[in-house]
């Protein structure tokens, strides 16, 4: 009988302070839930037998267990990024965000499985196998932070860390019916996050409420002398700035993405998803908040996915050149160093990653760089400038996530087709480093769907406050998985 898995961080903290529950009880319940979920959905990369018990103090996170995506460096704990190239790697240092959570006396409970090194949006490329959606085991969680999303949805703990280079937090959050937040680039240090695409990688968090997301990120963030791209956010307290007051705020959504008429072959799920999105918007509008429809050049939107792929694959092929099996990871076999490195890499990487490396390498070649890599970087600027212009008039952009609820594993329609932009628009949040949060906004065929709110850089407090207000209009706060099959 589970007693605590539906509670918010504030509620858990109160119970711990009042000694209604002990840290041990909480950790044990979390462990039990993790075992159940692992059996059903295979969401963990490494299960920690005995999490380190920590004392409860004033910090809201003290004594509360949490999940960590497998691509965070955790001292003394296996950290594989769900890749066979790191299947035995035990770091001797913590990621800065983990150091910060340690200071809060937070308890690392599990390492969650993911798409290998954060590449891929399906949760199917982890070294430990396919990660299933706890709502419906025939469906995916999306990726790459699949394990973190699934375990928070299941109530294993109130929050789990994720990383987001394209939509790796914000899409699985929608598919699993939880909140997924990536703050402005550089708010949380990336030191100790295994790099995928450095100019796109963000740390972030899954929770079951907006307020919980604020609490966790407040504890993770901060200027880090080990990460030159971090900035001083000591004047920002997300938790305290949430007041639910969004009177006179202005939001917008993009016609080219949200209008059902753009999708002549729309599935039943897509129709219901967009209908639900517009219903939510209408509901929110009643609250003295302006939500406009705006238009964006379709040409820019059409290239988002390729722009993302080119930049991400190029940076990835370079970032992952340190994976040679010499200093860490299983050693390759062969007569020469080169053969050994090649053996390590050929055996260690999944086919998806290898293909992406080859493309990333091609677009960086001297003779190809201008046409592919630099053009992609140029379009990136155009899109970011467009978004920044929108933010001059609007506090945030609100959009539906994906083209419906979680996809079935055998659904082949993911890669291309007219719904591409619906699937890929979250990547714009990474292009510009924008704060971006997904919250659950309803159900389609009993499966959760989500909407996303993205604002201008450094405007995290505003974005969270808007998300909090919209969340409060609906009844999906703190929801736990209700298995449909």
């Amino acid at each position, binding site marked *: 009988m589970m007693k605590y898995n539906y509670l918010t961080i504030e509620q858990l903290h109160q119970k711990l302070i009042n000694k209604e529950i002990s840290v041990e009880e909480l950790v044990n319940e979390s462990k039990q839930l993790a075992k159940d979920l692992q059996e059903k959905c295979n969401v963990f990369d490494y299960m920690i037998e005995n999490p380190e018990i920590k004392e409860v103090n004033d910090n809201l996170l003290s004594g509360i267990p949490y999940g960590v995506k497998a691509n965070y460096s955790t001292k003394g704990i296996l950290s594989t990024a769900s890749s066979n190239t790191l299947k035995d790697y035990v770091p001797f240092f913590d990621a800065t965000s983990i150091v910060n959570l340690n200071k809060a006396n937070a308890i690392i409970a599990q390492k969650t499985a993911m798409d290998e090194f954060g590449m891929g949006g399906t949760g199917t490329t982890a070294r430990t196998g396919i990660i299933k959606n706890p709502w419906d085991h025939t469906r995916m969680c999306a990726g790459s932070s699949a394990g973190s999303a699934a375990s928070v949805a299941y109530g294993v703990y109130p929050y789990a860390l994720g990383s987001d280079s394209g939509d790796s937090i914000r899409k699985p959050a929608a598919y699993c019916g939880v909140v997924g937040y990536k703050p402005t680039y550089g708010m949380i240090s990336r030191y100790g996050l295994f790099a995928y695409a450095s100019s796109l990688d963000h740390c972030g968090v899954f929770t079951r409420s907006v307020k919980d997301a604020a609490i966790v990120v407040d504890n993770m963030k901060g200027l880090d002398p080990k990460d030159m791209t971090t900035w001083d956010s000591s004047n920002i307290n997300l938790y305290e700035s949430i007041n639910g007051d969004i009177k006179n705020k202005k939001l917008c959504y993009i016609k080219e993405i949200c209008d059902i008429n753009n999708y002549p072959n729309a599935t039943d799920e897509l129709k219901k998803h967009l209908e639900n999105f517009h219903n939510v918007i209408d509901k929110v509008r009643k609250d003295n908040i302006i939500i406009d429809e705006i238009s964006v050049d379709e040409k820019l939107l059409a290239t988002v996915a390729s722009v993302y792929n080119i930049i991400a694959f190029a940076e990835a092929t370079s970032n992952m050149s340190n994976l040679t099996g*010499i200093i860490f990871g299983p050693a390759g076999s062969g007569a020469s160093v080169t053969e050994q490195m090649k053996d390590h890499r050929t055996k260690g990487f999944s086919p998806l990653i290898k293909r992406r*490396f080859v493309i990333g390498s091609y677009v960086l070649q001297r003779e190809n760089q201008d046409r592919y890599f630099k053009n992609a970087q140029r*379009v990136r600027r155009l899109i970011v400038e467009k978004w920044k212009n929108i933010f001059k008039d609007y506090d945030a952009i609100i959009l539906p996530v994906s083209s419906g609820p979680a996809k079935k594993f055998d659904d082949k329609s993911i890669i291309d087709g007219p719904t591409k932009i619906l699937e890929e628009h979250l990547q714009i949040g990474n292009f510009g480093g924008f704060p971006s949060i997904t919250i659950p906004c309803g159900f389609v065929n009993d499966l959760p769907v989500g909407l996303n709110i993205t604002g201008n850089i450094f405007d995290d407090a505003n974005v969270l406050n808007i998300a909090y207000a919209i969340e409060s209009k609906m009844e999906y706060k703190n929801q736990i998985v209700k298995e449909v099959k």
Partner: protein
Amino acid sequence: MSKFTKEMVDSYAEKLLIGLTEEENAMVLSEFDVIDKDIDIVNTIEGIENVEVMTHALDNMQIKELREDIAGVTPDISDLLFNAKNKIGREIEVPKVVGNDEV
């Protein structure tokens, strides 16, 4: 017809120190074709060649302070070599490196 040929794919893979199966090779080509088509669209954007490339996560990102020149503490050698499989004394050991191994 793709600009990217099967042979090129294999040669790139070789330089990246990874082996590809025939099937993987073919998938690279089809994935690449999507990108190539999108780049054709990009090239129809007026004035695209004059847009400054965006190389960092935040546009116009700039920093004012650099690190002071202070040395930190070297981690324990047992930590540094903990994950290495082939080591001798304080060092990692690899098959003898000869001049032309740079790839």
